[in-house]
């Protein structure tokens, strides 16, 4: 069952410039989200109506961890909420990653696409699965040292790790195509380039997409993306889609 509840903020710390880790205590009884699912945060400001969709980054005994970037007025407001403050949340929303029984999972993240992959990496480690995380950042990397698996970092300016983007880094890493699945989250151009990369090598790919949302639960048809099977709702049919299902060129 999905639900909307009032959660208590038990942590809201800046972990890198403009990047915050928010920890929320939910009332008991909420199911553990699946990696790739997201929640909606509602602002404590009645003049800002729309939900802010944020991917699940961690979950432990009704404590939900989210990592968000301050990009606009809403996330700026949330970054000012202190410990003990209340915030409304609906959870869990959307569908998680469909991990195949392959030898190795490659988790490819860009920027604020990294947090859901940390949750996925932890779940894979829990299940004794092998993984490699390939993470790209425009600025200072974050969360990289929390991954329970091997991590390769790329930065645009080369200030940390590989200088370039994650697709260039993947090309350099020269991974085997068989026995591999890529699970990715990041900006759409990155995911589009990754889809080309995976298609060329015959690597299975799952991508988590972003779109502007009205409701987050399939009612308003605001968040669609084009796929081979027609128009699909990112919030209800996604946010995770098969890489070869999404129509990238628009």
């Amino acid at each position, binding site marked *: 069952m999905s639900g909307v509840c009032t959660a208590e903020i038990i942590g809201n710390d800046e972990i890198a410039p403009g990047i915050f880790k928010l920890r929320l205590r939910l009332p008991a009884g909420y199911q553990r989200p699946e990696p790739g699912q997201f929640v909606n945060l509602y602002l404590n400001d009645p003049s800002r109506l*729309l939900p802010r969709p944020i991917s699940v980054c961690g979950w432990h005994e009704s404590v939900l961890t989210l990592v968000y970037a301050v990009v606009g007025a809403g996330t700026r407001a949330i970054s000012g909420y202190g410990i003990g403050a209340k915030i409304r949340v609906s959870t869990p929303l959307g569908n998680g990653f469909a991990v195949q029984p392959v030898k190795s999972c490659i988790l490819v993240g860009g920027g604020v696409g990294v947090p859901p992959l940390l949750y996925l990496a932890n779940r894979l480690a829990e299940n004794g699965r092998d993984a490699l995380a390939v993470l790209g950042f425009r600025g200072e990397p974050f969360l990289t040292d929390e991954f329970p698996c091997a991590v390769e970092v790329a930065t645009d300016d080369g200030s940390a790790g590989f200088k370039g983007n994650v697709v260039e880094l993947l090309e350099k890493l020269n991974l085997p195509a068989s026995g591999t699945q890529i699970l990715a989250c990041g900006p759409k151009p990155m995911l589009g380039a990754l889809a080309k990369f995976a298609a060329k090598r015959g690597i299975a790919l799952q991508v988590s997409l972003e779109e502007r949302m009205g409701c987050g*639960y399939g009612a*308003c048809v605001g968040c669609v993306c084009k796929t081979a099977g027609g*128009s699909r709702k990112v919030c209800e049919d996604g946010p995770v889609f098969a890489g070869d299902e999404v129509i990238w060129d628009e």
Partner: protein
Amino acid sequence: MSDLRVIFCGLELQNPIVTASGTFSAKGSGKFYDFSRLGAVTSKGVAIDPWPGNPTPRIAETHSGMLNAIGLENPGAERFIAEELPLIRNGIDFSGTRIIANVAGRSVEEYVRAAELLNAADVDMLELNISCPNIKEGGVSFGTSPAVAAKVTQEVRRVVTKPLIVKLTPNVTDICEIAHAAESSGADALSLINTLTGMRIDVRKRRHVLANKTGGLSGPAIMPVAIRMVYQVASAVKIPILGMGGIMSGADAAEFLMAGASAVAVGTAALVDPTAPVRILDELKDFMDEHGFANIEAVKNALK
């Protein structure tokens, strides 16, 4: 205990709370609340053929409101009847919740064909969305001309045996003129208001926020406009009104009733709070108990 039942177009609703078109889906909304508690649920706009809708972004936030430019994406009447309608029916089971099918079209013929199919389907009432752009008239909305509004209402009326609600657009100079045209062309009820056309620009990116450039403004920002229009129309026509536009609370719902609405619809509030329709129902009940209103008629007649 107050009695919340209302008679609307000759049908009993167990209470006056209805979902507004485009903000409800049986599967999605049903995850958050039991919609069999509501007076009625309204489908999103259904046209005779599938419509692809507009490119994204389709949604933008505004001060105390939002813009949407969905472009009436819908699977077409046949798939709506085969797929969405059974889900709604399953969710309301043996409750008295009514089903309203919202009808969209780009020409009078398209409206008539969709209305004919929906009239024969498992729905209780039809709501004609005459805010749609008329492709034969350069995209001007049907609902902005009394003559065109009358024409589409008459033609649809001919094929519809179930109660017919005509949903008015607020983007007009004189809403009462359009209301009269719909009433005299056979509408059993009116619903108002649809969204107000708006636009936003991202000044940093120097771009339109919506891919479609313009969109429909909804939410609490439009409520005073809606209240005024419901009040004006209620004094101009004899048929009942389904009032909507920015309802966020039970008190807001009561305000629409006092302005002259017989029932009210909750739209944008359900995006801000997925349980809004049932929360507003509970709040309206509490409001009526607290202020000693025995029934909805008493609220409707309360304005001094």
